[in-house]
């Protein structure tokens, strides 16, 4: 059984300063312990990269921040809300309004158009008619895919799908953006487009961005880097 530990820089806790607070979190899948007594905070408005070997639990951590997975023990507080105790439906509404998530595996709905995929989180957050249209147009324009808005997602390339995922994560202007290996499997040109979006564009400005990556270009953008490393038993 491999145990992981996280190396972090020290930061002074202060109420209201943190987008995410991880308090003594442990996570296991059956007998396999992924994290043990994890304790750290992410400051609001910072860009944080999480690096570490493949299979080390980086995606698990993102999923826990998004409330898609729950810790075995401990507490995760996101924007002041303890998401570990939220019922599923409340968590869904919270996620729709607070967290933009770009997963590593494409989770777009292939039967829907680009526009329909991007506006889905707005439906879930109960954003109505004209406001929904305005927000969707804005983010499609900023990400540079407005011209593709009527295309069915199943006809897009991998890179185009990643752009749509990014637009969908940003459409509701969430304070927290979680990205799982955002430049993985992209050609250099598409990767550069994603990096451009992360580099101080006003879509991501002021947001807490937490990204897992193996890409040095992404870690160079980060203000803080957390490393997950295997602990020798």
């Amino acid at each position, binding site marked *: 059984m491999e145990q992981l530990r996280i190396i972090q820089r020290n930061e002074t806790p202060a109420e209201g300063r943190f987008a995410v607070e991880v308090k003594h979190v442990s996570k296991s899948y059956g007998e396999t312990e992924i994290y043990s007594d994890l304790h750290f905070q992410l400051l609001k408005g910072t860009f944080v990269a999480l690096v570490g070997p493949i299979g080390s639990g980086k995606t698990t951590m993102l999923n826990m921040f998004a409330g898609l997975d729950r810790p075995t023990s401990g507490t995760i507080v996101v924007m002041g809300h303890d998401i570990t105790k939220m019922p599923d439906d409340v968590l869904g509404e919270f996620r729709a*309004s607070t967290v933009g*998530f770009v997963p590593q595996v494409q*989770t777009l709905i292939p*039967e*829907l158009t680009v526009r329909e995929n991007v506006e889905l989180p707005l*439906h*879930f957050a109960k954003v109505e008619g004209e406001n929904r249209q305005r927000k969707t147009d804005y983010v499609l324009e900023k990400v540079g895919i407005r011209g593709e808005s009527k295309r069915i997602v199943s006809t897009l390339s991998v890179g185009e799908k990643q752009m749509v995922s990014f637009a969908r994560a940003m459409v509701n202007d969430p304070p927290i953006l979680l990205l799982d290996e955002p430049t993985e499997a992209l050609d250099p040109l598409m990767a550069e487009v994603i990096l451009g979006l992360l580099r101080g564009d006003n879509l991501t400005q002021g947001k807490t961005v937490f990204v897992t990556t193996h890409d040095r270009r992404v870690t160079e953008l980060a203000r803080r880097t957390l490393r997950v490393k295997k602990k020798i038993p």
Partner: protein
Amino acid sequence: MSRGVSLHEGQLLARSLKVSKSTHLVVASVAAAVAANATAAILMTGTVGQIVLLALIFVTLAAGTSAISSDIYVRSSQTIANLRSIGASSRSLSSAIFLSVIGYGIAGSALGAGLGAALGVVLGGQGGIVSLSIAVLGVILASSAAAAAGVYAGGRRVWSN
């Protein structure tokens, strides 16, 4: 915050979950077939028989629509997980499936009840306007309630698993 789904949201979710025209056709045709036979039989039987027939409609249609509903959830489990990752609640997904199916259940049962009433009269059943209206209305109500209960139960069964 509203818990239901708007028409547009319901349509998007139904398409995402692959609730297709075939699904609608299955629901409508099953409801029509059951309603037609039951209405004709109701016109040719007494009160006790009528109650038994209405109960039979309810049970069979509820079982059928429950199975259809469960099937939609099971074959779309990955899509449901994806939708939940961007904020969909179990309630909004259940509502979308319910709304996309229930209309066809009601339409099918109304059509079937009308055909069944005509068949019942031709076969020598009660032909008075009051008897016909009660039979048709009873069958439509029983079928609609069954479709609603079935879709709901199918969803509940999957969510609880």
